[in-house]
């Protein structure tokens, strides 16, 4: 309270008289988790009625900073001002009271509750539920009308699409009279069309005078929707720019701290013989839901076949079946040998020349509690070179092997004695990539190779994959990142609802067309139709 009083004369006599105070002002925020400094002396001003982007690589401290603003974490030092007034935010309750709402990357919804129940949770306004639910229902109608935020109030969350669940999170914040809305990586799980809708909503919220803070690592989104952007690197804000006055190249350089190539340099593919043949692959899960529906494709040596799609449309199951982790029906031939998908055998698949970089490196790719050198032989641990006889493993050889891989793949810190968990996401992924690539597989199956990986490591991993392709390996790449699919793939398959919606060549398609396919819409007659359409618009 006293801070407010002492500030007031300063504002009247100072130069800030004309401009209203920023919606949010951070002064010297610092936060560390043990030895890791997640945020260091952060100063940030967010103008009222703007969309302010925050970009930075994974681990740059964006989410930590936002969690501090929302009171989910406590800062070690620093002050927060909301509309020129200093506020103490010790809990989400304080943040909500200060008019701050947050949409977390991983939604904070109760899955078996209805939309209404989720919205009133924590702001029931009385001991009984009835009046709260009625109030929320009326409010939902108004919000739906004002901001294109329609959603069935009685739907149970787990039956809603991810895009609708996110809408519920936004409604939750608005219902709590949020004036400053923070969204943490909101588009990671959305189709391009859903993302466009989200951006429309954000713009209309901004036009109503709300302040939006958008956290993302996707530069395209920053350029498209923000008014101003701040770049974070290693826990610090290194620059703030007007979006109109900057470029993706400049932002990328600021994020990484050096020049980066956003485009992947890739010579044309020279596909050879067919090495993987998949015919009519079908999979029904334990609940009886069809996850894969008659999947058929061929993969040739020396090419990268990319599979695009929104997460959860059967890609994970396809990876699991092909790598011998999960049983399915159908025919798969690896080289000239049939691979029995009804009786999956991951070891046999590896011995036949198939390597696998799993989607979830922390659960499938590594044992997080094991040393680096214990992780590098996984899947190949039964090879004679690691065998010392009597069922013992040759630890010296394992360590030597690991040290070589760490050096060749520039894994940092270059110490294989560390536990896998103590490496950053990018370096963990490099451990897995090194292990699989160095066995010169005939076929490499890769799931989300750069998820949660920093830009520097993405560049490195992409280069490795292309080199491997040019050496004659056949690569099946599954990714939800359209940029990655378009820049790495020699051919692109789009999966939707367990089916292959269509095949495209990267030079003959664009994000819009792929986005429609990912949403289950086949945009008219394939190939010829769209190609002429595009030409027509340009000419």
């Amino acid at each position, binding site marked *: 309270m006293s801070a407010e009083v002492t500030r007031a004369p300063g504002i009247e006599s100072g130069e800030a008289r004309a401009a209203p105070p920023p919606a949010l002002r951070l002064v010297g925020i610092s936060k560390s*988790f043990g030895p890791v400094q997640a945020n260091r002396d952060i100063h940030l001003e967010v103008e009222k009625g703007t969309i302010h982007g925050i970009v930075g690589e994974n681990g740059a401290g964006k989410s930590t900073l936002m969690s501090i603003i*929302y009171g*989910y*974490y406590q800062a070690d030092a620093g002050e927060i001002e909301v509309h020129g007034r200093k506020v103490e935010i010790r*809990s*989400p*309750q*304080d*943040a*909500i009271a200060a008019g701050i709402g*947050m949409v*977390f990357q*991983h939604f*904070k*919804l*109760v*899955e*078996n*509750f209805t939309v209404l*129940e*989720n919205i*009133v*949770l*924590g*702001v*029931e306004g*009385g*001991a*009984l*539920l*009835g009046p*709260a639910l009625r109030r929320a229902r009326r409010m939902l109608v108004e919000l739906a009308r004002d901001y294109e935020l329609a959603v069935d109030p009685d739907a149970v969350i787990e039956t809603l699409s991810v895009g609708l669940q996110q809408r519920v999170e936004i409604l*939750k914040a608005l219902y709590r009279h949020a004036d400053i809305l923070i969204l943490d990586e909101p588009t990671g799980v959305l189709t391009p069309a859903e993302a466009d809708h989200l951006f429309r909503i954000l713009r209309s919220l901004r036009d109503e005078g709300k302040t939006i803070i958008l956290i993302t690592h996707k530069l395209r989104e920053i350029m498209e929707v923000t008014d101003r952007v701040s770049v974070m690197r290693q826990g610090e804000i290194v620059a703030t720019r007007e979006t109109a006055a900057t470029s993706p190249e400049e932002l990328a350089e600021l994020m990484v701290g050096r020049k980066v190539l956003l485009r992947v340099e890739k010579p044309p593919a020279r596909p050879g013989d067919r090495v993987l043949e998949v015919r009519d692959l079908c999979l029904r899960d334990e609940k009886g839901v069809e996850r894969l529906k008659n999947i058929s494709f061929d993969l040739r040596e020396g090419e990268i076949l990319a599979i695009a799609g929104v997460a959860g449309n059967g890609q994970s199951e396809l990876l699991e079946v092909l790598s011998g982790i999960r049983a399915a029906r159908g025919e798969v031939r690896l080289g000239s040998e049939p691979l029995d998908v009804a009786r999956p055998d991951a070891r046999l698949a590896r011995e036949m020349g198939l390597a696998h970089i799993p989607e979830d490196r922390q659960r499938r790719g590594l044992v997080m509690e094991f040393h680096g050198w214990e992780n590098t032989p996984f899947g190949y641990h039964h090879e004679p070179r690691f065998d010392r006889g009597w069922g013992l493993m040759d630890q010296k050889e394992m360590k030597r092997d690991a040290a070589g891989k760490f050096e060749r793949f520039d894994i940092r810190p270059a110490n294989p004695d560390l536990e896998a968990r103590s490496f950053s996401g990018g370096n963990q992924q490099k451990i897995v990539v090194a292990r699989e690539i160095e066995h010169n597989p005939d076929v490499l199956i890769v799931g989300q190779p750069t998820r949660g990986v920093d830009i520097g490591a993405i560049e490195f991993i992409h280069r490795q994959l292309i080199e491997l392709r040019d050496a004659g390996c056949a690569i099946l790449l599954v990714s939800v990142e359209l940029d990655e699919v378009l820049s790495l793939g020699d051919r692109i398959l789009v999966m939707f609802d367990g089916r292959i919606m269509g095949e495209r060549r990267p030079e003959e398609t664009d994000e819009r067309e792929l986005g429609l396919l990912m949403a289950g819409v086949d945009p008219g007659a394939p190939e010829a139709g769209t190609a002429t359409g595009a030409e027509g618009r340009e000419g």
Partner: protein
Amino acid sequence: MDLDIVLQLADSSVRLATPLLLACLAGLYSERSGVFDIGLEGKMLIAAFFAAATAAVTGSAWVGLAAGLAASLVFSMLHAVASITFRGNQLISGVAINFLAVGMTALLGHTWFRQGGQTPQLVGDARFHAIELPGAARLADVPVIGPVYAEVISGHSILVYIAFLAVPLTWWVLYRTRFGLRLRAVGENPAAVDTAGISVPLLRYQALVITGILCGIAGAYLSTSMNAGFVREMTAGKGFIALAALIFAKWRPWPALFATLLFGLLEAIGIRFQNVELGGIGTIPVQFMQALPYILTVVILAGFVGKAIPPRAGGEPYVKEE
């Protein structure tokens, strides 16, 4: 089978189901909040002992009930501190509570009363007695309804009525109040509760207080109403049967009533029909009849009654993710 036997069976089903029902509802509050509680058994046992011991000394069943509640609450808070504050393993804490209760009641019982771990026989006001509901005698002659009212519904101790009233009350709390909404939410996704600005630990402590109270009533009922005193290990697995009933009921109050009544009925059958003659084959041994509730427990826990999905955050201490 004539009406009398049916009525007798129904009557004793109600009596036998009562402690199960109370324990089942106790478990419902705890597990709905995301804290697994296999220590229902131990809490009932310690409550049964302190209720009987106190009633024996003071001569008042009500004072005994208060003592039983207090003992059960203390044990429930032990579990709360271990599993909420210190984020310990909830199963281990529950096992510890069960062992502690068995050992403590035997030791204290033996030391205080020197009757081999039993408390003295409770007489007079030291026990809860049956209550005649108004009009039971007058309605008794009305066909069907009369005897049902007089035999099955009327004539139980106050604790039985408390147990059965706790069912609609729990339903109302769970689905019609703010506390209920938050309780259900915290057992499913504590992060959602936390980010909504509600304290997860406080909510779980509140749930475990209710669990303690209900287990306390269940224990007191066993030793001061259904029986006239405490006998060593008198809960005889009722806490675990209640857990099975809770799973059977899929953590919902009304189904919990029917599940516990089913167990009560099986127990009543086991007592009423000690040696059943099967024409030509022989007799079913009494041990089998008495084992019926336990057999059903195993069948339920083995998942033969359909998939029961527990509260999703159950058993997991809540730690903010980084």
